[in-house]
């Protein structure tokens, strides 16, 4: 993948006046306005957390960024170009890892290169390196049902990272994990992001998670979804679980929670 030099000056994500309406159940019932006039800009290499109550349109937004759905109005751009369908430049991590159950861990990681007919020795080496990075070297010939929940998530990470995405879209990826695995995955994600400097849009329900991970937290309210507040997180990096015990962190959490409660 070649990147043009001026690419980095453009925002990684630009969402301008986006509207999305879902059809009602019957012809007479009005459609449901999920998003209306939504704006958001994400800088290159930024870690942005989207936080909001259930049903405020976070997944809808992420699906449009991924190219799974189209907006009914407004524009969705990544790296300055309008999103037109899904693509490997935008890696998607779902709430459940969504590995292909009939492929081994390595087979899952190599799915992308194979699908794009780019299965070279280099891609293979890269996949093995990534499995090492996510700590799954020993499990490369195991099938997804033989992995633990955390291992499946890390396999899904490797499967996305092998495509060298410029943007990671994560929809409550750790929501279904137990508390211990969740902390381990957050740590893993932070270290990965520190190293790779990919742009990340991270959807979460959890105030603490948003404050721990993000450079900025976009607090949304529904419905239709709009931005309630965008809060800068000025905590020093690298952050770890100890960060959550500092006073600044607690203050920040309160600030975010107030923005959440401050609907209307």
């Amino acid at each position, binding site marked *: 993948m070649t990147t043009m030099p001026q690419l980095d000056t453009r925002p990684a994500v630009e969402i301008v006046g986006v509207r999305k309406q879902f059809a009602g159940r019957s012809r007479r019932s009005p459609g449901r306005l999920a998003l209306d006039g939504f704006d958001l800009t994400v800088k290159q290499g930024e870690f942005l957390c989207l936080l909001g109550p259930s049903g405020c349109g976070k997944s809808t937004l992420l699906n449009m960024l*991924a*190219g*799974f759905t189209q907006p009914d109005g407004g524009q969705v751009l990544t790296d300055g170009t309008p999103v037109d*369908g*899904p*693509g*490997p430049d*935008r*890696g*998607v991590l*779902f709430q*459940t890892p*969504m590995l*292909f*159950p*009939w492929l081994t861990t390595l087979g899952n990681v190599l*799915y*992308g290169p194979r*699908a*794009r007919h780019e299965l070279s020795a280099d891609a293979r080496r*890269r996949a093995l*390196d*990534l499995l*090492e*990075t*996510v*700590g*799954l070297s*020993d*499990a490369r*010939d*195991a*099938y997804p*049902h*033989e*992995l*633990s929940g*955390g*291992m499946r998530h*890390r396999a899904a990470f490797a*499967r*996305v*990272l092998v*495509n060298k995405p410029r943007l990671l879209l994560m929809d409550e990826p750790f929501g279904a994990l137990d508390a*211990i*695995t969740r902390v*381990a*995955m957050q*740590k*893993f994600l932070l*270290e*990965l992001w520190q*190293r*790779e400097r990919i742009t990340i849009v991270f959807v979460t329900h959890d105030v603490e998670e948003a404050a721990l991970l993000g450079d900025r937290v976009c607090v949304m309210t529904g419905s239709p979804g709009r931005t309630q507040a965008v809060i800068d997180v000025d905590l020093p990096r690298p952050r770890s679980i100890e960060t959550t015990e500092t006073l600044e962190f607690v203050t920040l959490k309160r600030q975010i929670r107030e923005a959440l409660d401050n609907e209307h």
Partner: protein
Amino acid sequence: MSTDTLAAPVAERLTPAVRRRRGDISWRRVAFGLLGLLITALVWELVAALKHDPVILPSVQSTASTFWDYLSQKYPAQGKTLGQHALVSAARILAGWGAGVVIGVALGGVMASVRIVRYLLDPLIEITRPLPPLAFIPLFIVWFGIGETPKFALILIGVVPVMIIATVAALDAVPTELVQASRSLGASAFWSLLTVRLRSALPSIITGMRLAMGGAWTSIVAVELIAATSGLGYVINNAGVNLQTPLVISGILAISVLGILFDGALRLLHRATDPTAR
């Protein structure tokens, strides 16, 4: 990316996956299974000895020797050996079932993808599904005579709806996110359809094929009983009319053997396509 491990703490805490073979044969299970068969044979032998009437119930040995003899001996005299009759039935099954599977999967695939086609065919399937295929035998004999065509048609009419329902259900059950995942990994719509949607549905489709195979045997034996001059159903019927009970039972056993063989092959296929079933 360098090879040092970001996830070291995680990796330490979670034990590495050890692949277990779940297909290990349990000898206890096999031993008890054989014991069950043995007891059945003993009871059969006992009843046969008490009845002392080979037309009502021949002994195990006489049935076994009849089975063995007719593998090389023709029945009726100018006809085929038991093995050849079995091959005729098997060929009819494979032709009808094979065609039915192809048609059913194709129609099911289109129904799962094109809404209009689903609306069009749904009522038709709902109407034909509860009908036992055997009800069509007289109709098909009137239409197609007593050659191979009515037999083919009969198997088809049993297999196709089963395969359509299995295929549509299997394709509907594929999570959207699985397809979305493949698309965002760079797969084209066609590649994703092939390697994710269809692939994901495959184990369930094979289960449908197993169900359809059972129905196909019912159909073919029934139509051979009534309108055929070859095949296991014909042997069973003809031997019954001539009070050759050992041969009747031999024919039934031959069906059982073929049924187990075919189903075993499909089970192997299912195992090969579904790692979670291993």
